């Protein structure tokens, strides 16, 4: 059972994030929801690479080469890319939130109703 706990945590985090995106009215909270969901996905990506008792995939001359005991290094590279992309999205959303606040004087999404139909 314990082995599944991290995955369940991921799922809960992801659901919290999506819930915030769908139901919150404050745009800052919506942005936080996107960020939380994003972290859940990143966490899951790292968990895919996890191996109990595994060590970093670094080869050196003194050790014997044993790929079986190493964690998969590829998702670690991928998650870095994913985090950077997440940073770009978050920065953009926050910049938008600042401009929206400047125009409307509120963070409440239900008061922003220029677009209809």
């Amino acid at each position, binding site marked *: 059972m314990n082995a599944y706990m991290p995955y369940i945590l991921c799922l809960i985090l992801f659901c919290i994030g*999506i819930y915030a*995106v769908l139901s919150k009215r404050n*745009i800052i909270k*919506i*942005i936080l929801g*996107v960020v939380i*969901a*994003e972290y859940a*996905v990143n966490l*899951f*990506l790292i968990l*895919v690479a996890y191996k109990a008792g595994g060590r970093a995939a670094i080869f050196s001359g003194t050790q014997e080469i044993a790929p079986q005991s190493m964690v998969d290094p*590829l*998702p670690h590279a*991928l998650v870095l*890319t*994913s985090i950077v*992309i997440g940073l*770009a*999205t978050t920065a*953009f*959303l926050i910049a*938008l*939130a600042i*401009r*929206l606040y400047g*125009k*409307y004087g509120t963070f409440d999404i239900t008061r*922003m109703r*220029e*677009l209809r*139909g």
Partner: protein
Amino acid sequence: MIGESVIPLFVAIPLAGAFLTALLKRVKGIPDTLGVMSSVFTFALSILFIIRMQAGQTFVVNVGNWGGFQEVMGRIVGIQMVMDGLTIFMLLIVNFVAFLVAVYSVSYMTRYTEKWQFHTLFLLMLAGMNGVLVTGDMFNLFVFVEIASIASYALVAFGTEKRELEASFKYAVMGGVASLLILLGVIFLYSATGTLNMGDMRAVLAGSEQPGLIYLVFGLLLTGFGLKAAMVPFHAWLPDAHPSAPAPISAMLSGVLIKALGVYAIARVFFTVFGFPHQVSIILLVLAAVSMGVGALVALRQWDMKRLLAYSSISQVGYIMLGLGIGTPLGIMGALFHLFNHSMFKSLLFLDSGAIEYATGTRDMKEMGGLSRKLPITSGTTLAGAMSLAGIPPFAGFWSKLIIIIAAVQAHHMKLAAWAVLMSIVTISYILKVTRFAFLGELKEKYKDIKEVPGFMRVSLIVLALVCIFGGLLLLPQVRDGFLSPAVKALTGMGGV
């Protein structure tokens, strides 16, 4: 000279153009020149490729020369870029539209300040789209989708008025969630197959019993790419985002972005990687039918010209999905041909709406009327685009719709064929509304002094209109064998990645 080694240039040229534009923003004329030149180069490259490529030929390049590790590891290491019939077909469309849009925006974007920002973002978006098309690696696909998406969020907000910001926020949040779902799907696929290369994935998935996990992956990827393609349950952002962007960007978004990021990605992933499973076919058919209906019927009651065109895009993407969902070679050919036509006429119509806005300052069709006397070129080209969209023979749009409907009948989807015919009648009525209210009738007093748009904008409009009129010629056997058939083969046969 033209071989696999130049494939990365499709991404590198616009990327370099984007950064040079940002660096040299103070030099007069540089942003315009770089914007046009970069898209000219990529367009010329795609033409050279299509001339050089024999039917069924596939170019593969290992980025960063990681190919040597293949023998050691027993599988492909590093990112591959792949060029097959479908890729070059899409590249030609994307870069052609991008080139014309860049020419158009030389004049049009003088209405806005900070033109260099526009060109930087535009070229970044182009780099992202070209990347999506050439990549043969699942995670790389996700990265390029994100590059194109984030650039497009910023472009939608370019006017920084209330409407633009609101539309961009909606688009960015929905697009962000879509990207997360795509990434989640890619991770599940990686954990199931142990590889990120599309060709390897196909081999692993075809060789073994498909795990139950695969259905979860279908759902995640279909939702994620469906959001990017604005298929109906996931379409809410499109009618806000596309009209809010500056007109050249609306043309790019509706004309090519939803196709490169949505339709192409769905075709690539579900045909090439999963071998087009039956369940996906049914889902695509249902979504296509709903999209066609909802898009067309809601478009009928719009008065904002760009908003009407945006809803029309949803409906027309439904047609493309219908062709793909049928899955027969004829259906796929109809889908790809309609994709080509839709890129041309929808870009043209959005550029025309921009031209009207440029001349009169309004997008509301109730405000317009009688403009054909004052704007002969704009009204003539709009008519060409409208007839192609409505599917009036001999305009290009007629042939592609005809092929899709014939394919539906051949595959015994009689109800879908009837639905497609019915919706094309609705299409005629909403596009006649545009031509009727904007160009015919009495000219309003306040528009007595308006002038036709400047030369750069005219060139783009006329070229696109000519493609709309003569696009049907693509079906001639000689032309089809070089352009359309290899793209169809790449999806139906094993000639893919």
